[in-house]
C-alpha cells in the first residue's frame, strides 16, 4: 500500500496543463498507487468557465474539422501522451477501475474509429434543410449551437462513454470535462490527443473533482452532459440545460425456443465488456420457462474468468474486497424471492477473492416468478441479469425505460411494436446483442438534438453579405 504513484493526472484549463495544491491519490483495486490526480475545487470550475467566456477565444475560428478529429483519434490509439504509452494507459485504466484490460485495449481502436467517423456522423445528424447555407434573397434554416460551453460529468465505467462527447467538438463547443473518480485517464488522454492534433486549446478543459465541482460546472456552463444513476436524475432531472444519460436498464425480449444462438446473444449482451456498459442487458423477458433459460445463461456465464484486471485473461469486474462484499450484499437485499442460478451456486461463492485485497464479482443470473418483479429495474455494474416471465397479454409495459432492447426470436412484429415505444431508445432484432451500434445510429437520441437547433436567417435580395457568419453564432457549415 506504499510507494510512489507512477503517474500524474493534471488539471487542464482552456488547453493549459495546470497544477493544483490539492491532489488525490488514485489506487488500483488492489490498493497499489497508480496516479496522483490533481483536484479542481468548485471555484476552479467557475473560474475556468468565466475565463472561457471572458476571452471569447473562438473568434472566427471554425470548429475543428473532421481530419483534425481523425488525427486526435489516431493519436489516442497510438501515441505517448502525458508520459503514458497506449499500454501504460490501458494498464492504469484497468487497474484503477477494476475493469478487464481487454476493454481498454479495444477501446483504443474504438475511439480512433469514432473520431474518424465524426464527419459522417455530423452529416447524418444535420437536418437536411440546413445544408445549403443562406444566400441573398433567401430566408432559410441555420443549424446553430444552443450555447458555447458544454460540461461533461463523466463516469468511470467504460472508456467508451467518452466517445460520446467527441462530436460536441465538431459542433464547435468548448468542452469542460469532470472525469469520473476512477477513470481520469481516458478523458485526459483524449484531451491531450486532441490538443496535439491541433484542436484550439480553449475547447478542452479537464477538472477532476467531486460532486461539488460537478455542480459548479453544471451551474456555470451553457449545457451539460451528465452521466449518472437515479441520484443524478433526481439532482439534475429538472434542469433543462442538463442532458442526462441515466441508467441504461437495457433488456432482452426472448420468444420461442431456447437455442444456442439465443443463449449466445443473451450472454454477449449481458457480459460484453464485463457487464459495465449501460448497453449491457440487465433483464431478460421470456415467454418460455425463466428457470430453464436462466440455467442455460448461468452455465455459459459461469465460465467467465476471474483474474486481476491487468491480466489479459480477466473477464469480470474487480473491486476492493469490502466494496465487492457490499455490492453482493446489496444484490441479496434486492432479491425479493428471486433465485441466483450462477454466482450463488459457484463452489467458491459469488465473489472470487484474488488474494491481493480485491475480489472479482462472479455473474449473477436471477430467476423471477413474475414480470413485474422489481429486479427488472435493478442494474448493477457486473454481469448481473434478471430473467423474468413475459406474455403477449402485456407486451410493452415491462420493456419500458430501456436504453437498448434486443428482440430475440422469430417475431419482427414485436420489434416493430417496441420501436413505437419512446422510452425504448434502441431496438435491435434478429440476434444482435444490445450493445451493437451502427456508425450513425443514436445512442440515446443524437447528442445534436440537445446541442443544436435550427434558427432562421434571412438576407434581403441585393444586400451586402458578410464573408462568413461569426463563429460564435454557432453555425456549422456544410
Amino acid at each position, binding site marked *: 500500500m506504499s510507494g510512489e504513484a507512477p503517474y500524474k493526472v493534471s488539471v487542464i484549463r482552456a488547453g493549459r496543463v495546470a497544477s493544483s495544491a490539492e491532489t488525490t491519490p488514485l489506487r488500483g483495486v488492489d490498493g497499489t498507487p497508480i496516479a496522483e490526480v490533481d483536484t*479542481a*475545487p468548485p471555484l476552479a470550475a467557475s473560474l475556468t468557465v468565466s475565463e472561457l467566456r471572458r476571452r471569447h477565444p473562438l473568434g472566427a475560428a471554425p470548429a475543428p474539422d473532421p481530419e483534425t478529429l481523425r488525427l486526435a483519434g489516431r493519436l489516442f490509439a497510438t501515441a505517448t501522451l502525458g508520459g503514458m504509452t497506449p499500454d501504460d494507459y490501458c494498464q492504469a485504466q484497468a487497474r484503477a477501475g477494476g475493469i478487464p484490460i481487454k476493454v481498454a485495449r479495444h477501446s483504443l481502436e474504438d475511439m480512433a474509429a469514432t473520431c474518424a467517423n465524426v464527419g459522417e456522423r455530423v452529416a447524418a445528424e444535420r437536418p437536411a434543410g440546413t445544408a445549403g447555407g443562406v444566400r441573398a434573397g433567401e430566408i432559410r434554416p441555420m443549424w446553430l449551437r444552443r450555447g458555447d460551453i458544454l460540461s461533461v460529468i463523466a463516469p468511470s465505467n467504460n472508456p467508451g462513454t467518452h466517445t460520446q462527447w467527441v462530436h460536441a467538438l465538431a459542433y464547435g463547443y468548448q468542452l469542460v470535462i469532470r472525469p*469520473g473518480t476512477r477513470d481520469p485517464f481516458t478523458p485526459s488522454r483524449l484531451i491531450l490527443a486532441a490538443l496535439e492534433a491541433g484542436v484550439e486549446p480553449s475547447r478542452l478543459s479537464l477538472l477532476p473533482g467531486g460532486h461539488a465541482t460537478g455542480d459548479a460546472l453544471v*451551474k456555470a456552463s451553457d449545457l451539460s452532459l451528465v*452521466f449518472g*444513476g437515479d441520484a443524478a436524475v433526481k439532482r439534475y432531472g429538472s434542469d433543462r440545460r442538463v442532458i442526462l444519460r441515466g441508467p441504461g436498464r437495457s433488456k432482452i425480449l426472448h420468444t420461442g425456443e431456447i437455442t444456442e444462438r439465443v443463449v449466445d446473444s443473451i450472454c454477449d449482451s449481458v457480459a460484453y465488456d464485463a457487464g459495465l456498459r449501460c448497453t449491457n442487458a440487465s433483464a431478460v423477458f421470456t415467454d418460455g420457462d425463466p428457470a430453464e433459460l436462466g440455467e442455460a445463461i448461468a452455465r455459459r456465464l459461469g465460465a467467465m474468468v476471474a483474474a486481476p484486471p491487468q491480466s489479459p485473461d480477466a473477464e469480470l469486474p474487480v473491486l476492493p474486497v469490502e466494496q465487492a462484499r457490499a455490492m453482493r450484499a446489496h444484490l441479496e437485499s434486492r432479491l425479493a424471492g428471486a433465485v441466483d442460478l450462477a454466482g450463488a451456486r459457484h463452489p467458491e461463492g459469488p465473489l472470487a477473492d484474488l488474494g491481493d485485497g480485491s475480489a472479482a464479482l462472479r455473474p449473477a443470473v436471477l430467476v423471477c416468478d413474475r414480470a413485474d418483479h422489481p429486479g427488472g429495474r435493478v442494474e448493477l455494474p457486473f454481469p448481473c441479469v434478471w430473467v423474468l416471465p413475459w406474455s403477449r397479454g402485456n407486451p410493452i409495459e415491462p420493456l419500458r425505460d430501456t436504453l437498448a432492447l434486443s428482440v430475440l426470436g422469430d417475431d419482427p412484429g414485436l420489434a416493430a411494436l417496441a420501436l413505437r415505444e419512446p422510452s425504448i431508445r434502441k431496438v435491435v432484432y434478429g440476434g444482435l446483442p444490445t450493445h451493437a451500434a451502427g456508425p450513425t445510429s443514436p445512442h440515446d437520441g443524437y447528442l445534436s438534438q440537445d446541442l443544436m437547433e435550427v434558427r432562421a436567417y434571412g438576407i434581403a435580395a441585393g444586400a451586402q453579405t458578410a464573408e462568413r457568419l461569426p463563429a460564435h453564432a454557432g453555425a456549422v457549415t456544410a
Partner: protein
Amino acid sequence: MSDDFAAVFEAPVDTTPDLDELVVATMTWHFSPATGSPYWVGRAPGLGFDPLTDVRTYDDLRLFDAVPVDWSSIPAQTLIPRGCAGRPGRFGVYESGGATGAPKRIVDATSRRRNIEFQNLHLDEQGFPTGDGQAGWLHIGPTGPHIMAKNIGNLSELRGFTPFFVDLDPRWVRRCIANGREDESKLYVDHILDQVKDVLLSQDIRAVSTTPRVLESIVARHDVYKVLGDKVRGVIWGGTSMDAETLRLLEQEAFPEATFAGAYGNTMMGMAPQRTRREGDASPCVFRPFFPYTVMEVVDPVETDRPVGVDERGRVKITSLTREFFMPPTAERDMVTRRAPAAGYPGIEVSDVRPAEVAAKAVIEGVY
C-alpha cells in the same frame, strides 16, 4: 477597575501570562460566591472536588472531564459572573450555529474584544488594509444571535472601517441542505448576493469578511464578482474550512488585488487568526488560537484525553479561560492537523480544519 487578577485576565494582548496562573485566577473568580457566576457557583457543591483548592494547574482541569455541561439549556444570565457587575462593557448572549444540535449559548462583554485585538495584531503584520476612517467593511455572514457581528464591529473599528452587514442565517442554510432543498438554498444564496451587490454598488467597500462558500458563489455570479473584484483589497474568510487549492485560486486568480487572511473560530472557542506565513510552512494557512485565554488541544477523535503528535490529525479540544467566561476542556467537532508553533509561540497552532468526517457509503445502483 483593576484587581489582583488584572495581570493575567487583562494582560496586554501581545504578552502571554502563565497558563497555570490564569487557571488559578479563573477558578478563583468563577467559583468564589462573591465574583463567580450563579451557574458555576451553583454547581460547585456537586462537582466532587473543590475548584478553589484542587485545580492549581491546567492539567488539573481534567477533573472537569466528569462534569457534563449542556450549554444549550443553561439560562444565559446565570453565566454572567457577579464580579463583573460595575466593570466596563455590557454583556450580551451569543449563540452557536447549532450544527451539532440545539444552539449553545455564551456570554461576553469585553473578553472577545481582546481576542479581536490579538487578531488585529496579525492583520497588521500581514499588511491587511486599513480603512483610514473612510472606507467600508462588508460582512457577509451570520449576524443576529451570533457573535460574528460583534467581532466584525470591533475588528472594523480597530482598522478604521465602517461596518456594513448582509445577514446569512446558517441554521436556515443547514436546514435546507438537511431536507434536500438545494433549490431553496440556492435561492437563499442568490438573495444574499443580490444584497451584497446592492451594498457594493453604492458604498465604498474595501474589505470583506465572509465564508469560503460565499466567496465561491460570488465568483460564480459575474455581476457581483466584477464589482467586488474591482473594489476589495482585503478579505477575511472563516466559518467553514477551505482546501488549499481553493485558497490559492482565490488569492492568486479570483482576487489578486486583495490580501487574504483566514480566521478559524466559533462561538465557544473564540477567534484563531491566521498566523503570518513563514518559509517552509506545511500548510498555506496555519491558525493560532488566542493562548492562553483559549487553550486548544488536538486529541484522538475517540480517546479524547490522548493528545496527538505534531503534524498529526485529531479533534480539537477547547478550554476557555477569561474573566467573563469559563468553559472546561471540551471536545469539539472539528478535525485539524496539529502544527508546531512558529517562533516560540507558547500555544499550539493548527491547520487543515475539517468538520469531523461522517462515514458509511451506500451502494449506488447502475453502471456509472
